[in-house]
């Protein structure tokens, strides 16, 4: 093998991150020159707002995928939390409480996922696929397939309306989530163990790590975050839309993988996921401005996803591991 290169793990991930940021910057530049209003405060604000949901859920999903697992139910959870929040708000309880209930409904789904995927050892892909279906159906049932519209309290959209300075509350939530999960990824045991389980499960277990306990925590976290995203989305739309979140899970997965997380686990980063989410949003946003049909976005998303993985694998191969 020869002498080791004096490159730490951080540096290696960072080079991939730099490439990503470069791509993002490049795309932004292209759109700045080809449209009038891309680089305006209003537009950038919109961008950030629409990426919020993917980023918040993605923070948890990144860790989960780093550990080598997956969760396909987040889209359905989005819808569930939306409706729960709307219903709860209708009953007259304080909106903050209603919002908490919404997020907790996501946590409940996380419990189901933890049970089937970890305890009963059903393969995560299928287990969360099942939850996805079941929850989606459940949402349709409780909402009677109708958007929850009437009877909502005036401060229903408090997450978007309440401002601290010029910045809405929702933005702070996203910021807090990013900071917390970045810290977890880099400094907390949960983050380290996720990398260990995804990278070399045998070694992790031999070192005394309780892999099941870690995975259960991760599924609960993802459920909660998806619930939170649902509440945020509901607040933004000002209605409890039971149709939201279809294909949301794939948007999240694309952002996570674009950001450098491998499906097999063991590597990834939250910052990368954020850049990945932004890239997808920016492309959508810019193409909208150029009056390109939104359907092209679907095509581009698909190509992007495959390219991201190919790039990922090529990088792994050239590093010789």
């Amino acid at each position, binding site marked *: *093998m020869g002498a080791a290169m004096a*490159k730490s*793990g951080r540096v*290696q991930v960072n080079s991939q991150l730099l490439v990503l940021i470069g791509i993002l910057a490049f795309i932004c530049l292209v759109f700045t020159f080809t449209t009038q209003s891309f680089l305006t405060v209003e537009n950038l604000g919109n961008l950030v707002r629409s990426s919020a949901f993917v980023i918040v859920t993605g923070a948890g999903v990144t860790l989960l995928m780093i550990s080598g697992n997956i969760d396909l139910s987040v889209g359905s959870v989005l819808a569930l939390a939306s409706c729960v929040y709307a219903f709860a708000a209708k009953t007259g309880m304080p909106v903050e409480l209603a919002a908490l209930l919404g997020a907790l409904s996501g946590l409940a789904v996380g419990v189901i996922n933890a049970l089937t995927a970890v305890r009963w050892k059903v393969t995560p892909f299928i287990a969360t696929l099942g939850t996805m279906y079941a929850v989606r159906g459940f949402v349709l049932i409780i909402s009677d397939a109708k958007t929850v519209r009437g009877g909502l309290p005036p401060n229903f959209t408090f997450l978007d309306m309440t401002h601290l300075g010029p910045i809405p509350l929702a933005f702070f939530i996203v910021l807090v989530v990013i900071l917390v999960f970045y810290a*977890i990824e880099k400094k*907390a*045991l949960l983050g380290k163990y996720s990398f*260990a389980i995804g990278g070399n499960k045998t070694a992790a277990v*031999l070192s*005394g790590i309780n892999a099941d306990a870690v995975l259960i925590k991760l599924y609960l976290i993802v459920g909660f975050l998806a619930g939170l995203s649902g509440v945020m989305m509901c607040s933004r739309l000002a209605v409890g839309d039971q149709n939201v979140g279809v294909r949301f899970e794939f948007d999240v997965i694309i952002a996570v993988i674009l950001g450098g997380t491998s499906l097999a686990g063991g590597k990834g980063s939250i910052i990368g996921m954020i850049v990945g989410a932004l890239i997808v949003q920016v492309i959508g946003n810019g193409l909208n401005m150029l009056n390109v049909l939104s359907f092209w976005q679907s095509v581009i998303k698909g190509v992007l996803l495959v390219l991201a993985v190919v790039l990922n694998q090529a990088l792994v191969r050239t590093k010789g591991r």
Partner: protein
Amino acid sequence: MAETLIEIQGLTKNFPGVMALRDVSFSIARNTVHCIVGENGAGKSTLIKILTGAQRKTSGSVTYNGKDWDPRSTGEAMKAGMSVLFQELNVVDQLTVEQNLTLGKEKSRFGFERRNEAQFALTVEALRSLDPGIGLQERVGNLSVAQRQVIEIAKAISSNSDLIVMDEPTAAISDEEVKRLFAIIRQLHERNVTVIYITHRLTEIFDIGDIVTVLRDGQMIETRSVRELSASCSDDEVEACSELIRMMLGKVVAERYVPREPPSGDPILEFSNVSSAKLKDVSFELRRGEILGFYGLVGAGKTEIARAIYGLDAITGTMRVKGRPRVFKNPRAAISAGIAMVPEERRTEGLLTKLTIRENITIMDMKPIKRFGFLSRVKERQLARSFIERVRIATTGEEQNVAKLSGGNQQKVVLSKCLNAASSILLLDEPTRGIDVGAKEEIHSLIRQLADGGAGIIVFSSELPEILNLCDRIVLLYNGSVRKTLKNGAEMDSHLIMQIVTDSTGSDARAQAG
């Protein structure tokens, strides 16, 4: 007087049909480097697995630190102060050195890792003393094999292990790195750590060992002080190794070998100066009706040669099949040219474990059972049954799932698969590993029959008796190159063979063998 760390009394381990350990008794003294040697199948790994909780013993007793020791899991052994360094290193490549060293032992506050300063200082000190060149923040995946070993050792030290077991640690590292490893082992001695060292490279025992235990066929033959052994051979290392070999082999009688004169003619398979990632300038010939054996230690290159022939690895040099130079891009091409391989790992490489005997036998070549392009159930059944009878597979029928068969019968299925492909050249990689004596015999006689029928057969094995009983000629390998090619016969010197493959013949013999 060194106190005893581990006391083994009458240890026996039975597997169905095989007695892996038979009434083994010896003791391991504290703070020594205790080497364990023996051929493949002698019982080394079973012994270690029982000591470290990966297997349960059948009978006998083990005490550890004076107390009864019967662990149910490797976790239990680890908590009690045992660390094992396997060949597949248990480090997480994506984490840094520091993170690996503290994995599973972190102190935390609110879930965030808090550095346990005292523990950390110990770990750093351990690491520095072993190899100051490793940076704490380096990603483990970027380090060499030797360095990753060092990390595992450092981890063991810092968790205050009393005992570190090293299983063939020098198999994958360079000579320089071996020297450093030995220096580290000497350091471990100073730290009052006991080391169990398993190796095939006999010279290493004299470099690093204090006591050596020789196992053979599941029994403990001798446990002796290395110094005493050396002295009894006038401190001549070659002599001393010979003595060890004598203990390892016992009386090796190639009583079942019947000399066979291969039909003279052109070779059916030829290697001329073939090199690959692991192989160095290998040349040999195989004739029709001949059984050629490749013998060497773990890592000598046996499987690599099989892979090179079979089209799995890229090679430089020339390979000739039936006189024509050939390059196989994949196994299919090799099979079409008449070469079939029985792989080393039965369960993962040789068998389709979810399918039946019938389906396994026919997978390599389906032409015999086709009718009008479709598979004929009738023909397939007939074919399977004829093989079951011919090769004597003990089964309820061709519809039985192969996973349920015994090791010997499974191997017969794999052989049948290759025979069905009507190969003129058969590659058998460890053909009777883990198989009971009865089935071993049957398979050996089958191999002889096949050779008598004109097939060219290559046997790759790390069991010397097998090689001596079966093969007409024997190629001895060490570290990827051919050391010597011998013709088998009544005067076969198994001693010399062992010396050559353990590289303990001394400098002149090495130069001679080239």
